[in-house]
């Protein structure tokens, strides 16, 4: 069943049934009845729905990849993740990493100092380097216990969000 993640919370969705303007959608334990009040148009690309006593406006503003949608609900932007096939009881805890872990930069910034080097042993959570952004010093911690196999940056380098920093094996 599709799983929708919004603001850190997961919602299990069911099959949409209905026709024309009246539809029902199971969300977790509840079933929500929706009535279409106004379809999107060229002039106003917003869908207006009634859910019980409320009016809800929804615009789809875009998507990224196969799962991430940028939507606007009642004028408020939301980022939602739609997982189409959710195995019945997938563990929602952070999955343990067993293979080599590639450490990417979580943000744009400057490498303020290196705390590790190739072939150094590190503990999980140990500081690998310090990334400076917005006048803050941010420690990049190792995602696992292991050995630093490769280091792609050096002190003073400017990095962008997503850039490779190092590889821990």
């Amino acid at each position, binding site marked *: 069943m599709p799983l929708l993640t919004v*603001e*850190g919370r997961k*919602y299990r969705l069911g099959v949409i049934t209905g026709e024309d303007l009246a539809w029902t959608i199971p969300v*977790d334990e509840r079933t929500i009845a929706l009535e279409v*009040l106004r*379809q999107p*148009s*060229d002039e106003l690309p917003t869908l207006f729905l009634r859910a019980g006593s409320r009016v809800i406006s929804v615009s789809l503003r*875009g998507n990224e990849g196969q799962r991430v949608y940028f939507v606007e609900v009642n004028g408020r932007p939301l980022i939602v993740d739609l997982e189409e096939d959710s195995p019945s009881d997938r563990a929602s805890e952070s999955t343990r990493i067993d293979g080599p872990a590639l450490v990417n930069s979580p943000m744009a910034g400057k490498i303020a100092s290196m705390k590790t080097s190739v072939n150094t042993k590190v503990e999980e959570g140990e500081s690998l380097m310090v990334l400076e952004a917005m006048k803050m010093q941010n420690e990049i911690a190792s995602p696992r216990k292991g050995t630093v196999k490769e280091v792609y940056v050096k002190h003073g380098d400017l990095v962008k969000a997503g850039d490779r920093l190092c590889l821990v094996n």
Partner: protein
Amino acid sequence: MFRKILIANRGEIALRIIRTCKRLGIKTVAIYSDPDLESKHVTSSDEAYRIGSGPPAESYLNIEKIVRAAKKSRVEAVHPGYGFLAENADFARACEESGFVFIGPSSKVLGNAANKFESKRFAKAAGVPVVPGANSEVQSAEEAVTEARKIGFPVLLKAAFGGGGRGMRIARTATELEKGFETARSEANTGFGHPELYVEKFLQEPRHIEVQILAGPRGRVVHLGERECSLQRRYQKILEETPSPALDTEKRKRLVSLALKLVRATGYQNAGTVEFVMSRDGKFRYLETNKRIQVEHLISEMVTGIDIVEQQLIMASEHRLDLSQNEIRFNGAALNCRINAEDPARGFIPSPGRVDRFVPPGGPGVRVDSALYDGAFVPEYYDSLVAKVAVQGLDRTEVIGRMKVALTEMIVDGIKTTIPVHQTILEDRKFLQGNYHAQFLDTLLSGWKPQGKIAPDEIAAVFFAIRRKMVTAPTLNLQTTDRRSRWRSILEETKVGKQALYVEGL
């Protein structure tokens, strides 16, 4: 009054100063670094000059370039804002020597007393209790450990020049102190252009309360009441309020009189803030004097009706203070939330980038100070503060209510912000009781997670909209960085009638 001033700052505080200057008919000169070419303070000012590339050392901390811009634009004075060079004696001196009025205390005062040990000595001499700490800077981690052992652990490592939490580290052991030393030095250097640190006793769960003062010449000093600033995360203030819920009339009187005593003893002039900690037994200890306009100055403005920037300009240009204490009235309460470009769900990591949409809140008692606009860019080089939302009202209850409403209205799309964290604080029982201290937020926010307050019917609506789209149009997978264009592209695929459809809802 000045006819033209240069604002040696950026973003919201530059815009804040521009607003008052425009009202008073003072021309403003902005400076900008390359990534700030698009900043609102550039196009809102009468003149604007580039002073260098992104890193602060190349631009907003570069005294020579800023003085050159001031000369070129023939200003009469320079307003430093807060942060950057606001408390830098070298900068104040460079302005003075080039014939510009530095809107703040003189370089002599900054040179003597920005150095915090001096002002602590003054305080002691004047009979104002101080927080135990070293009497001079520490040059190395070893020296810091020696000092810390004298004072007794736990200690705080602090930047000798500048404030606002940058370069601060708590150390409970010598190892922790050694470990944090270099990072703190580096932060202090980036933030204030000075790496010097010192060591101070770390106090358990104190209140952090400060007094806003305006000090004119000939010892004329008035205060604009106190600000309760205990809500901090890692020494960064997050939410400030006035009056402090921890003070009764008697305690407030005592605090204010200590602050005035301190200002008179140090001979301080211009707007400033005298910071104190209040220990659990109700004792006040002097911490430091902030010799600048502060981020949270707006709550003092809101309860007194006094424009602090205007007062700074009058004091600097006309060497007078028109206000007397008995004409300053305090109206109700005010609260300020600092909206930072940080992702609280990922340990508050910085979240610079492009803001697709900015919707400030409105309505009664709400004030927004921000340089954001639709499409604004938040560079990774500077402070993460992108907006201040302040509210004023008759009492604390009204003010908290207004802030909650304001934050639900506010939209900052494209980057992550601390808005949901403020919402967590505003719902907290202890906060609502006014029962908190300087270490309170570190506990409340450790392991903070988003609340996920979206209602099931909204979830259903979102899912329906996505599914509907999949049926009527192929899902597009665009890689452009502009969300508006993605949106547009998807919508152009949709084959729906132009005729709007109305359905009876009742």
